[in-house]
């Protein structure tokens, strides 16, 4: 299995790209509002996915 290699890749991505993404995000004008809105969207998406799974 190649899971440990994938894990290593994720670690590298976390180390290199994650800070850049966060920095870019907080440079946005309405960062706090966007954070809450995205968070809510993610919750709704999870709810929808779970709802669909239950009805399958």
């Amino acid at each position: 299995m190649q899971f440990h290699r994938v894990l290593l890749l994720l670690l590298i991505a976390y180390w290199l790209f994650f800070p850049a993404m966060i920095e870019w995000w907080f440079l946005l004008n309405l960062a706090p509002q966007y954070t809450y809105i995205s968070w809510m969207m993610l919750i709704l998406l999870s709810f929808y996915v779970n709802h669909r799974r239950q009805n399958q």
Partner: protein
Amino acid sequence: MLTLTQLLTIGSSYLLLIFGIAFLAEKEVIPRRITNHPAVFVLSLGVYASTWTFLGSFNFIHQSGLVFLASYLGATAAFILAPVVLIPIFNITNRHQLSSLADLFAFRFRSGSVGTLTSLLLLFASLPLISIQIQAVSDSIGILYQDSSDSKIAIIFCCSIAAFAILFGTRKPSLRARNSGLVVAIAASSVIKLLIFVSFAVYVYFEVLGGVSDSAQWINNSEAATALLERKPETDSWRTLLLAFFTAVIVMPHMFHLLFNENQSINNLYTASWGMPLYLFILAAAVPVITWAGIKLGIPGSPSFTMFYIGEILGSKWLIIASFISTLAAASGVMIICVLSLGSMLQNHIIIPLIPIPKTAHFYNWLLWVRRALIILVILISYFFYENYGVAKQIQLLGLSAFIAFLQFLPGIMVTLFWSKANKLGFITGLSLGIATWFVTTFYPLVFSSSTLLSDLDIGQFSWQSTAILSLILNVAALIIVSLLTQTTQEELQAAESCLYNALEQPSELNLSPFNSSDIIQILTPKLGEQAAQRELNKVLSSLSLNTGQLMPFDLLRVRSLLEHNLSALIGPIKAASLLAPLSTKDAIRVFRTPDILMLEDQLENYQERLSGLASELDNLRRHHRTTLQKLPLGACTIDNQHRIIFWNLQMELLTQCPAADVLGKPLLEIPEPWGDFLEQFAVSPENHVIDLRLEVNNQKHWLNLHKNQLGEAEKFSLVILLEDDSEQRILEEKLAHTARLASIGRFSAGVAHEIGNPVTGIACLAQNLSFETDDPAILETGDQILNQTKRISRIVKSLMRFAHSGQSAEDIQHDPVDLQIIIDEAIHLVALDARGKQQIFNCNIPSNTRVMGDSQQLIQVFINILNNACDASPQKGKISIDCEINAEIIVLKITDQGTGIEQQLIDKLFEPFFTTKDPGKGTGLGLPLVHNIITEHYGSIEIISPADKNQKNGTQVVITLPGLPSIIKNDAHNGD
């Protein structure tokens, strides 16, 4: 304002309320459908919002702005990723009955020392977390009442927590047993926390900030309020905190306990995947509002207690009560579950390996008392830590140090799920290095050197983010390098395989000699005591529907597996495995054996949904081959070298009437007679192919062909046996022979009739001439008798000729559309001419236009013969009915009389030529064979049912089936009386 006594009474009342809810749930006064509802489980996970998340957030938002969201977003990420992180862990813990993180690691690395190390380090890492809960409660009272004694309040709080944990967390000896009272109480405290927090935020939003328009205006004008959320946080803090809180959801003892121990279904985790993020979202949304209100009111002290200060400044006793209860709810929930979980870890990994269970002690009671003592010990240690090191520390910094410590367990979790090569040594080295780094760089400066870790959160010369990441990197690097450099044992690899994502439970090698249930009790007794051993074994046997006594290898494998899981929940996975070690042996040569294969099949069936990629494709291929074998129109079975059945297909079930579930794993000889002996004899015989073996099953003869072949090269290997039932072929052959015999009789009859005909004609002529040659009445009478006898001979000869001609080929017969109603009416008319026919009542119910393709004269002959027979058998004025049914163009004619009926043993012989039941001279025995031949030539069939009337046991019914013409139109029945 409130007095201290009043506040303490309110606090006690809250704790009593929680006690009451737990008690009602335990007694099932609160119905099970509520206590087992997914919403209750999700709300119980709200325990994550401890005083750190609850109060520490206000400090964080003051110091670092939006960074406070990290604790909420990190946990949100863990819950949203439930299908790839939480559910696989749930599967492992549920399958192997693991009750804590220490159990999980001990099981994965097959080492008691790993369990002990994990337990001790988790206790160590949890101390700051528990300490801040005690601190939050005592400080909140300290803020309101300067002269109150912190120690006394802390002691009261700790005692209440210990009492609750012992009362509701140690009711059942199994660590995996669900404490519904506890879960409902924690869920209730989460609801209280949420309601208070949201209500508080809404209240201050309107009362302090002035509602929608005023608040927006004030925030825009106030520099402090604007800066609150616009402060650009350090990206390093974000990254580290997100990872730490992501890990905390899985690793923190109280979260692990609720997620995997108190949870009974994967569906609950799916619900939590959106439910918990929503819970955290609501909490997080309230934090900035309350903080703005605090800024506007100018709170005088630590931002952690913003809610208390707001209540004090506004002079509202209700706000103070709400703040106090929410703090109490946040602190008590975490402490109760955390001490419970730590207690169970210490029991499995410190006490049980070190202290033998006294022989006189009752096993289950002993376990419960040990756990209770450990809960008290953990609370004492926590109180000691709080008193000596925790007091006056910043809550969010102590909590932070705990979360960084929990981060050190993340590599262990990841390798458990994704990397099978990681081994015990690597894990121990990595964890020790990580924790040591954390201790030196974070814990020691913070706790012992009283470093303040001020706004930039620096620890000594390194920032805390750097030291957290450094400790994690050292941990991961050591784990990978040591694991790669050292040998992973076979046992560890096996455990690793069963822990991997998509893992199958590997069937372990078993000694083939069967065990007796009393042997298992003897193995368990030294550790559990005889009574507990007996009880555990009985529990397993009844859940597997097995009886005591001799256990076959496959059953033994199932018993051992379930017993190990159950004992794992009582005494931990390592102790359970070592206790049951005598039940398994290692084989040098790995060969598949019956229990292995059956277990593997069983597992693959259960795990189908979890297979993906190549594994899924291979499983599809396996299913295809298996279905092919299952549905093979030949009976197929496979037996191992001990002649135990491994495979038994559907045709085999049909032939032997033995369901696969009853025979799999059993020796051939044990399957019901006569198949057991029959197959066993063939299995041991030197012949690989045997045909036409006759076997009588339930008074029915079967002709069987058997084939077998070895599945491997080695001698005495598994065999595949094919069983072919040739009975139908044999019956057809017999019918063919019968028809051929009839045909030969026909040819013979034609010859005989021709040869007899001429002399009989001569005799008849001579007898007629006698009347011209003499007047002697005696001679004339003799002449008449001769004439009568020659007429009789002629009639027989004519019948023979007709019978012989009925056997001619189908090509010689002209088939035309024939209306059955006309044919039967004519037959009735002809039969009624005879004296016997006149005495009967004919009832003909044939719809008009019921047509078949056939020869009308031959069909009239058929019905005359049948109706004549019916007349002969019927009493005077007997009723003979002719009915017709048309089913999908098949015409079924039923001719029923009310005669004496025919004996059962004679029915089979009725179509034999020259067989008759009539008196000598009255029947030739050729009528029904002739009928049979004619009907067969018309592609039909004939059957005789007697008695026709089952109640009165009389009458005969002749059922003739003929193919109808497609143009059959259903008309009303024609009555031919």
